């Protein structure tokens, strides 16, 4: 080392070029992410607006935008909500099993197994749904129609192929299960040990302990897990596109028939290839609607998570 501390050149503030470049790169990468997100919204809007304002005879569907998109929104919400109704209890059960009912070491392995479900590509889910699940479900729908046909959901006529919105929802439920399980599991494991032991010391059974200590602590976490799952279900494309047998413009509560409403995402996937002109714009506009819906759901979910972070003693 040199034995003098005198800087070789006089500078008022010392910033090394390496530091400037590196921090500049990092900061711009961060800002770029904001720009990309803004870009997604902006480009969808730019290309979507001609589709929203297009007159009915300019698009393939022969409808103006609102009547065109409404059944799709309905189908999207219906499929996602049913998927959520199926997945939430199962996810809570699985998470509880992994976190508190199975031995600790085994729990980690079981967690990996559930994570594997998340790794399966959606096109594989689609193939499985149409090639395996739908045929297996068809007789069940037949049975539901003849025995529970008085309930509007099962009014029938039952689909012979099993390619119904119910089947699509089951596939969606399986697909959103891993992320919901992962979040629930994390939160269950974070339950303060003291609360659990306090409950057990009062003579609670394991279930009473879960109700007294775990669930109150994990409630907002479960809510946000459900909302994140909902976001995924709303946006899932291929599995629905492959499984569902659609009739355009349907709005029905019937879950087991062969005339089903499509979802926004599936409709885009199915129609985009042959679309041209204003029809493309209309599809992009419907994508914008989907973007807004999922953005709001995710935004709310993350906001719940973030608020929870501030109030939980875990940090």
């Amino acid at each position, binding site marked *: 080392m040199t034995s003098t501390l005198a800087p070789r050149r006089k500078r008022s503030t010392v910033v*090394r070029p*390496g530091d400037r470049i*590196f*921090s500049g*790169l*990092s900061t*711009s*990468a*961060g*800002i770029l*992410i*904001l720009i*990309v997100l803004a*870009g*997604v919204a902006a*480009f969808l809007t730019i*290309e*979507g607006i001609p589709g929203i304002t297009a007159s009915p005879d300019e698009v393939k569907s022969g409808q103006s935008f609102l009547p065109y998109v409404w059944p799709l929104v309905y189908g999207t919400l219906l499929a996602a909500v049913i998927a959520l109704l199926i997945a939430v209890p*199962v996810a809570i*059960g*699985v998470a509880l*099993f*992994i976190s508190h*009912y*199975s031995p600790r070491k085994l729990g980690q392995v079981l967690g990996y*197994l559930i994570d*594997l*479900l998340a*790794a*399966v*590509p*959606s*096109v*594989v889910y689609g*193939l499985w749904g149409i*090639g395996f*699940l739908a045929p297996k479900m068809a007789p069940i729908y037949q049975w539901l129609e003849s025995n529970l046909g008085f309930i509007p959901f099962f009014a029938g006529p039952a689909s012979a192929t099993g390619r119904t919105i119910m089947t699509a929802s089951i596939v969606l439920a399986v697909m959103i299960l891993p992320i919901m*399980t992962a979040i629930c599991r994390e939160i269950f494991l974070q339950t303060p040990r003291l609360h659990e032991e306090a409950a057990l010391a009062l003579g609670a*059974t*394991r*279930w009473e302990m*879960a109700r007294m200590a775990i669930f109150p602590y994990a409630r907002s976490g479960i809510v946000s897990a459900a909302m994140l799952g909902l*976001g995924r279900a709303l*946006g899932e*494309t*291929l599995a629905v*596109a*492959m499984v569902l047998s659609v009739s355009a413009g349907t709005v029905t509560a019937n879950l087991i028939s062969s005339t089903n409403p499509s979802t926004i*995402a599936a409709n*885009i*996937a199915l129609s985009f290839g042959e679309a*041209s002109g204003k029809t493309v714009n209309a*599809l*992009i506009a419907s*994508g914008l609607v*989907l973007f807004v819906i*999922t953005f709001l*759901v*995710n935004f709310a979910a*993350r906001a719940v998570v973030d608020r929870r972070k501030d109030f939980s003693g875990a940090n």
Partner: protein
Amino acid sequence: MTTLTPTPESPGNRGAVDVQKELYGGQLPERAPLLVIGAAVVVAAALYLAAGVNLMLAALVVFAISLALPVWSVAVEGRRKATDRLVTVLVTSSFVLAMFPLFSILVTVIGKGTKVLGIDFFTFSMRNVVGEGGGIYHALVGTLIITGAATVISVPIGLFAAIYLVEYSEGNRLSRWIRFLVDVMTGIPSIVAGLFAYALFVLFFGEGVRMGIGGSVALSVLMIPVVVRSTEEMLKLVPNELREASYALGVPKWRTVSKVVLPTALAGIVTGITLAIARVIGETAPLLIIAGATDSVNFNPFDGRMASLPVFAYASQRNPGIPPEFSIDRAWGAALTLLLIVMLLNLIARLVSYFFSPKGER
């Protein structure tokens, strides 16, 4: 659950008996759960093998018989314990239920997919193929190029953004927004990412544009947030003491980050990136929109349609032609290939984090 009425047989010894009853009384034998489950499985297996009941129904039978456990418990142990046992049965069954699709998918895809697998399947494209034969070479090439380009775009952006969040932002308002929006971005539907890429490319190349690189852009939108999140977690795990040690040696910040922090977190970062690749390599919807489908090999991502494995699987199932079975077989073959690639990436990710994480840290 317990009764405090004195037992007439031993009036002098009442207290002891009560305590004993309270502690031990009204309990199912320790092996009761095993017994019930065992019986359920035996009955279901008998039905499945002998009567040919389908698997779903057999599973349902196991579940129904398991419910005998809480019923038995009500009689012997009282309501509280019975409820506990009922919940245990439900929680365990929910796990088994969740495993069912996983195994079903694996069995189905492997069963139907292995039929077409062979050297030809991986070395031939679908050009001029009608009916039997043909392969996924073009789709494999397309998937590798598109995903590779997406990785090249996403990794630097994601990496530097994570570095910004952990090393440079010092928790300012901008970083909080970035973090929040990255979280929101992980929820963008993949098809919306595809539409974004299309809307972007239409501006430059006109209507009906189809390009491999567009697919890469769409996949990057999905991949960047995953890379940012996982890298950020890994950088946070690097002990601050190492940064201080480096600063104390007179090392500037950028060299500290690039030569101390990044190498220390490298295994974790590579794991995260591998998992991110595994996540996007199976994406179908955005490629369907912007990369399209073709039967020929295309090595140039900037020129026209480019096939990819997931889109190939989808299209083969959707438009099988006549006769349909060959095309459907190819769809399963492609799905199996894709599944194997994804599982392999997951395995690599786990191995990297297992073997290359710096050891000996406290």
